[in-house]
């Protein structure tokens, strides 16, 4: 199977701090769905940001979609094909209305207005969110914000979804809805989650990030492995 991401020997430290990631390796195959766990501050969010080039590692290489990625220009394509959903939807939803926020990505990709409106409606319908189309983003509930921020990323038609704690702060019902949506999507996934049942429901393997690297023992959730 073709590789979507291959990170090798990644070392990253925030200025003036000890390295967060040190000698980290990660591969993601097409259609693969993996969960990332690890203690708070282990560097999980940092890792996703490195994958889409928001942060540059001090050492190591990022190969994505078959090409090495080193500079901003090379990462533009990565960001289109790998949709990152941020931990806090308030960081992601910045447009006045839901429709405009979903349109933001496709418009940046140079789609025409007619095409964009089509994409907006299709994406909303796909997530069963059509009733939110003209709502003002900052007045949505926490759960609605979370689902809409997933929609804004899906509208870019990415091949991979990178989700940073998507189940956080959701009530039972909305969480169930998110699980259903994610299990129906065909995308390759990297999901950060502290919730074992959520991980089991939407991913097939899980990796644990610890001491700056991904633990050698990747446990197959399907194989009945117990969480370390």
């Amino acid at each position, binding site marked *: 199977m073709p590789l979507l991401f291959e990170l090798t020997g990644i070392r990253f430290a925030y200025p003036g701090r000890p390295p967060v990631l040190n000698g980290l390796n990660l591969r993601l195959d097409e259609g693969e769905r993996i969960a990332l766990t690890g203690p708070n501050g282990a560097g999980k969010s940092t890792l996703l940001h490195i994958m889409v080039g*928001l942060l540059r590692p001090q050492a190591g290489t990022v190969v994505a979609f078959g090409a090495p990625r080193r500079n901003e220009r090379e990462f533009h394509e990565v960001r289109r094909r790998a949709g990152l959903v*941020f931990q806090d939807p308030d960081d992601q939803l*910045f*447009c006045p209305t839901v429709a405009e926020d979903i349109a933001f990505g496709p418009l*940046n990709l140079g789609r025409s*207005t007619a095409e964009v409106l089509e994409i907006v409606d299709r994406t909303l319908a796909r997530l069963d969110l059509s009733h939110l189309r003209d709502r003002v983003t*900052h007045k949505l509930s926490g759960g609605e914000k979370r689902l809409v921020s997933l929609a804004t990323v899906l509208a870019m038609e990415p091949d991979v979804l990178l989700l940073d704690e998507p189940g956080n702060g959701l009530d039972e019902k909305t969480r169930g809805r998110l699980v259903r949506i994610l299990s129906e999507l065909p995308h390759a996934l990297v999901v950060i989650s502290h919730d074992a049942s959520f991980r089991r429901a939407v991913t097939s393997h899980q990796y644990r990030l610890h001491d700056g690297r991904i633990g050698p023992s990747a446990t197959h959730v399907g194989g009945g492995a117990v969480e370390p």
Partner: protein
Amino acid sequence: MHIVDALSDRAGHGSIRMLDPRLRIMAAALFALVVVSLSGLATLFTAVGLALSVMLAARLPAGPTLRRMAAMDGFMLLILVLLPFTVPGTPIVEWGGFTASAEGLVKAVEILLKANAVVLVLLALVGSLDAVTLGHALARLRMPANLVQLLFFTVRYIGVIGEEYARLRTAMRARGFRPANTLHTYRSIGYLVGMLLVHSLERSERILAAMRCRGFQGRFHLLDDFAYGRADALFAGLTAVACTGLLMMDLTYAAAV
């Protein structure tokens, strides 16, 4: 928080609220320009009358609107009271070595009328637009895109920052903080404001990162569907007639004096 809510509600009724937002902004701007250039008291009273009727047509609640106007007038009160004493002219009142002039009094009344007429029309035509529509209309009227985006970001995040402030304040109160006139209070409030700034800065960095993830490269695209209709043409005509009428009335009045 209430201000933001009031600004961003799309609900609207009344004949004026159906008009195209671009037209409402332009009409208010034109009216303001005309009113500022008027000089006769009679014309100014007519302008205020017109403004009041626009307010009624927009179905603004009279009470709160007039209270807002009073608040604005309160700000100007000091200047208005001083004007008669500083503008030289025919004395009308003498008080403790200061003389109030009739010309100064007329000037003060003129300013008061102009300000009230302009603000009333702004409240009726532009104030009833929600901030989102206002931003779009301004963008379509070729306001610089950066200013429009600044407006959008302000509307979007003022509530988020407000909540952050409330959270920090609650956390302080939960640990027994009671504001008093002490160094400790001032230092704590200083930390609070500093922390809000730091949070806002970090949030802005995260927002930019999220935008870059969705292909943002410095250009904003807008989606909207404004279209002028028959009612808009009628309103544009009325505005033109009213403004020309005011100007002509002012000219004849000036010629008569």
